[in-house]
């Protein structure tokens, strides 16, 4: 296969990684029944914190590069986890609306990121380096696409399988699904609903923080205002819905968005040729594509239109297609649970 094409696929996988990690983090949070709507702001604040921490470690001159990156990632994960905990605490303990708190935190975190990032704008800092996996990188086709990446990308592969395995193959995962679907039943069977919700909110938030660091230390190095990842938090939230709260489908959604972006970016720099004929139109309009895709995917998975179209299909196809297209949220998503 064409080497250039494979390299492009590889770079799509690379640039999609923060989206993959953030969406997977939100997936487990929502599986537990908590919505962390603060993603867009959390990503920005985690990104700038991670960058600032790594940069400071670099300036100190004591640590080597991997350790600098480690410091940055740890700081970013802490920020993401703390914001998520605040959402969890306000809904579980203080009985506030998750959406309201999450939305306020989105704005607050974004403004904080801008304020704290003012001194770190457009300065070079440490970056995560590429690390090709020996042997695997030489596998034809897949080697170039999947295994000539950096550590975070490899982590995202592992994370996807880990979450899938945990959710559907372990007792702990069963409890996780139960507290998001039927918390009363889970509670009656002895699951510590509130404590588990705190834990998975924390864990999901930490992954969102990691995604933030993946931007500022790798995909969009450094910090600028407005942040390079602005809007991606919302896209990640939509991907979770599109992915039907299933890790494989969520990851597929993230790659789809990244691919669309790569295509529109490619056209904007190189022009569009169809059968050798140059097609010209205002390329700025291509920036609308990810958002149109977001609306379309949500249209498909959330009932309404799909349901009406399905009416025209033969019955046998209907059921299968519906199961494939539609995605149903955890039943207790966003609902409070009070132990009697």
């Amino acid at each position, binding site marked *: 296969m064409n080497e250039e094409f494979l390299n492009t696929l590889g770079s799509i996988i690379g640039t999609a990684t923060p989206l993959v990690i953030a969406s997977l983090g939100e997936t487990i949070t929502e599986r537990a029944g908590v919505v962390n709507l603060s993603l867009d702001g959390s990503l920005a604040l985690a990104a700038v914190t991670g960058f600032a921490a790594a940069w400071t470690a670099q300036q100190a001159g004591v640590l080597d590069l991997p350790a600098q990156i480690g410091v940055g990632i740890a700081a970013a994960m802490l920020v993401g986890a703390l914001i998520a905990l605040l959402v969890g605490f306000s809904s579980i303990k203080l009985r*506030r609306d998750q959406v*309201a*708190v999450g939305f*306020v935190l989105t704005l607050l975190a974004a403004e904080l990121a801008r304020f704290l990032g003012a001194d770190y704008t457009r300065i070079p800092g440490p970056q995560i380096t590429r690390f090709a996996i020996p042997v695997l990188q030489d596998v034809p086709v897949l080697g170039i696409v999947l295994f000539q990446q950096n550590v975070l990308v490899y982590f995202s592969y592992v994370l996807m399988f880990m979450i899938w395995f945990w959710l559907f193959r372990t007792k702990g995962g069963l409890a996780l699904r139960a507290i998001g679907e039927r918390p009363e039943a889970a509670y009656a069977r002895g699951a510590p609903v509130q404590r588990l919700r705190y834990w998975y909110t924390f864990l999901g938030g930490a992954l969102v923080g990691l995604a933030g660091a993946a931007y500022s230390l790798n995909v969009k190095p450094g910090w600028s205002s407005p942040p390079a990842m602005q*809007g991606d938090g*919302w896209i990640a*939230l939509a991907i979770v819905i599109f992915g039907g709260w299933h890790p494989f489908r969520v990851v597929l959604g993230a790659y789809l968005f990244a691919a669309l972006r790569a295509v529109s970016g490619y056209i904007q720099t190189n022009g569009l040729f169809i059968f050798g004929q140059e097609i010209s139109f205002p390329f700025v309009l291509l920036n*609308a594509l990810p958002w149109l895709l977001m609306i379309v995917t949500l*249209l498909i998975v*959330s009932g309404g239109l799909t349901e009406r179209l399905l009416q025209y299909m033969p019955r046998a196809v209907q059921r299968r297609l519906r199961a494939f297209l539609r995605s149903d949220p955890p039943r207790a998503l966003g609902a409070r649970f009070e132990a009697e």
Partner: protein
Amino acid sequence: MKNPRNLAIQIGFLILPIAISLALAAALVIAVGRDPLEVVDALWKGAFKDTRKIGGVFNFWIPLTLVSIGLVVTFRAGLWNIGVEGQMMMGALFASWGAQYLLLPESLSSLLNVILISLAALGGMFWAFVVGLLKIRLGVNEIFGGVALNALVNVISIYLISGPWQPRIGGSAQGTEPFPSPALLPEFSSRFPTNLFMIALVIAAFLIVMVMLNATRWGLNLKAVGANMRSALLLGVATERTSMSAFLVCGALAGIGGSYRVLFTFDNLRPLASGGIGFLGLLVVLLLSIRLLWVPLIAFAFAAILTGSTRLQIALKLDSSLAGVLQGMLVLFVILFHGVQEVFFPRTLDDEDTPTPDPSRHLNGEHPIKREGQ
């Protein structure tokens, strides 16, 4: 208030979130090596130093109050109209179209102003209608529909500014040419540079919506839909139409707010002309637990912080986002402390004259990611 303990708790919980937000903001300022008192001084002077500055506060207050009034309506119906920012922008686009292509002589300026403002209202309604349609008929949650439509209208505006509407000389993505003067809203005076007609319009909108919400069947229907969609339907409320009407009212007000940005504040169309005012309106309304009465006052305070913050950059070389940080923390702590009060200091029974505000009460009717009919 009959019970002194309850009164003390009430006052304490009014002051605490404000005090904590201010203290945290001060700590933040100290952390970046500045003096919080200087920041207060700069904010104050930036907003109230003279009548010119106060006029500037009104110029933020006008669109902010308009969108906040609109958002009270959508929140009442249990809808999260995050798309309000895009509805402002669509209003600004419609007004900008009219300002460039409807050429009337200076003597008919007032008429043109009214036409442009009406166009802007239509623009806002159009974009709100799309969110409403996606939500009500097609099951796309209004938060995500709204976010996507906000982004789409920004793409459209950048396309227009860098394409069909670009200035004849030095076309760039900075903005269109200044609009012809009959299209622009006039200043009251150079010493008080704001538009009195718009201030009157805001007050009128406030009063009308107040009456509509509290004294009409429509207001009652909104509340019913917001409290419980299913029961409202069973009680015979036309829930779809009621929800859509809430979107349309909010869209119209947001559109008018957007027109003020381009016809007065900037005199041309720029990318992101709405300037985050729609999101700020969401904060205002959340701070007030969706009560309309105090909207103009809180909007004024937020507008003052916003106006004052422009001075931070010049006087102290501090990023103006400090204003947003302060506003965000205020709202966050007010919401959190409502919770602390409710959970840890439940009210005693003899004191029921003022219900505890609970921002989540109207929002619980339905969850954003959950679909109806499931």
